[in-house]
């Protein structure tokens, strides 16, 4: 029973982490109708940028001040937002009217570019690095033998907060209405006086900032920072992506639900079936969902325009 509860708690923590990244996929898909392959690399850059910032402030040793984490979080979010906006402007905007396949290939190109530039020795290098502990890595409470870690609580609270913020933004504000309008029809949206490019830029910025948050907390949770082109990052980005797809891409709540589902399956599978196959479960779910309900569990079917 304790094992069961512990796994449950762990999955919620992991799921929230996936959710932060999945939200970015879903947001960008929402407005541009394409899967931003480079999103997982923005996530990686978020983790590495946090590391670089924390090291630059000299918090590599223990005992960082209380404001360290929020400050690094905000700065990393700013860095990644800028990066996301730059990617959109340089790589995706020229292809606004191109076939989707071209945009997809470009996205893969951007992803490769970020991975490999990140590996250059004057960027982040190829050495794994230890992340400075900006958050006290301790157990907050122990309930019936179940460990509840500080980091997990922070991640869950932050994810819930950001989700609510996003929901409010999308469904209650003028900007959100504009985003949904652009998502449905760019041309008609521009006839309403919406600057479509600006909305897309903002969306990329928001999505990338969320990825930075995900990256930072990932680095804090699993403190051994792998090199930027490591397969772990790709896999992690993929899982977040799978979460977005399973939840119905383009759907904010769906992304979070999908992320939790993926984390549950992964953790419980690892606990009760075989720990070596945890990556497998995720992809089996993906393929099953895509085969039987391609629009995702919470998504609406989209009729392809002819």
């Amino acid at each position, binding site marked *: 029973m304790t094992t069961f509860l512990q796994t449950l708690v762990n999955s919620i923590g992991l799921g929230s982490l996936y959710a932060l990244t999945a939200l970015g996929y879903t947001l960008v898909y929402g407005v541009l109708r394409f899967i931003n392959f480079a999103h997982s690399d923005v996530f990686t850059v978020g983790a590495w940028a946090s590391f670089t910032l924390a090291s630059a402030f000299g918090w590599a040793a223990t005992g960082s001040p209380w404001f360290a984490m929020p400050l690094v979080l905000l700065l990393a979010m700013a860095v990644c937002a800028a990066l996301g906006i730059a990617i959109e402007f340089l790589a995706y905007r020229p292809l606004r009217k191109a076939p989707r396949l071209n945009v997809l290939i470009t996205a893969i190109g951007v992803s490769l570019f970020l991975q490999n530039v990140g590996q250059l020795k004057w960027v982040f290098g190829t050495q794994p690095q230890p992340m400075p502990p900006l958050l006290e890595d301790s157990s907050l409470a122990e309930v019936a033998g179940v460990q509840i870690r500080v980091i997990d609580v922070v991640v869950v609270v932050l994810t819930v907060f950001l989700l609510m913020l996003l929901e409010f933004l999308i469904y209650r504000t003028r900007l959100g*209405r504009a985003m*949904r309008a652009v998502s449905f029809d760019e041309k*008609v949206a521009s006839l309403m006086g919406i600057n479509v490019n600006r909305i897309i830029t903002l969306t990329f910025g928001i999505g990338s900032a969320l990825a930075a948050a995900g990256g930072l907390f990932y680095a804090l949770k699993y403190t051994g920072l792998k090199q930027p082109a490591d397969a772990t990052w790709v896999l992690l980005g993929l899982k977040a992506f799978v979460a977005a797809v399973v939840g119905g891409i383009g759907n904010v709540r769906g992304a979070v639900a999908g992320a939790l589902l993926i984390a549950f399956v992964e953790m419980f599978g690892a606990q009760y079936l075989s720990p070596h196959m945890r990556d497998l479960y995720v992809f089996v779910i993906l393929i099953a969902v895509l085969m039987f309900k391609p629009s995702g569990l919470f998504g609406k079917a989209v009729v392809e325009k002819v």
Partner: protein
Amino acid sequence: MALLEVSGLDVHYGGIHALKGVTFSVEQGQVVTLIGANGAGKTTTLRAISGLVKPSKGSVTFKGRTITGMPAHQIVALGLAHAPEGRGIFANLTVDENLQMGAYLRRDPAGVAKDTRHALELFPRIAERLHQNAGTLSGGEQQMLAIARALVAKPTLLLLDEPSLGLAPQIVQLIFKIVRSIAAEGTTILLVEQNAHQALNVAHTAHVLEVGTLVTSGPAAELARDDKIRKAYLGVH
């Protein structure tokens, strides 16, 4: 000085020359209609005016400013509203939100509220469905919503693209009645129609487009009596 002046407009779609030197103007307070067969370039003309397609030659002047090549959202900001062909409502937004999109650029909540109320008075059926998803409306209701949304923008010039397309005759009657009342309130309208009979009835001035070229222009009443026009577009033999 006319409110809208289109001169020597050329539009290419890839290798297709869709508009060839289209020239006309729209005076303040007038209803001007472009009629013509399928593929004559009526919709393209509107799209070129509102900035959805870039003309390859020629110029468009609105309120004395050259707007050729400006992005659509800037043109719209100058006081032009375009209810596009096929209605172009946002099916994923509610009716209410669609109307709010019409007022996207307006910063006077009181004025917006007044114009929204007025638009809903014109289309009571829309008012009944404010909180429904716009995608669930019928074709006629969607057309009404598209016009209402354009009105909420409080435009100086309203571009209407085929408001009667695919609608039942009764609804067509209703739509044109409302177009007439909008015009009576002083909004300038550029109307594109295949239903030449109705269009000539509403408009002051009419232009006939044939394969990308303006072939005839004149007061609508005169064109409605023209034998050639009657044969070609009004189905009178």
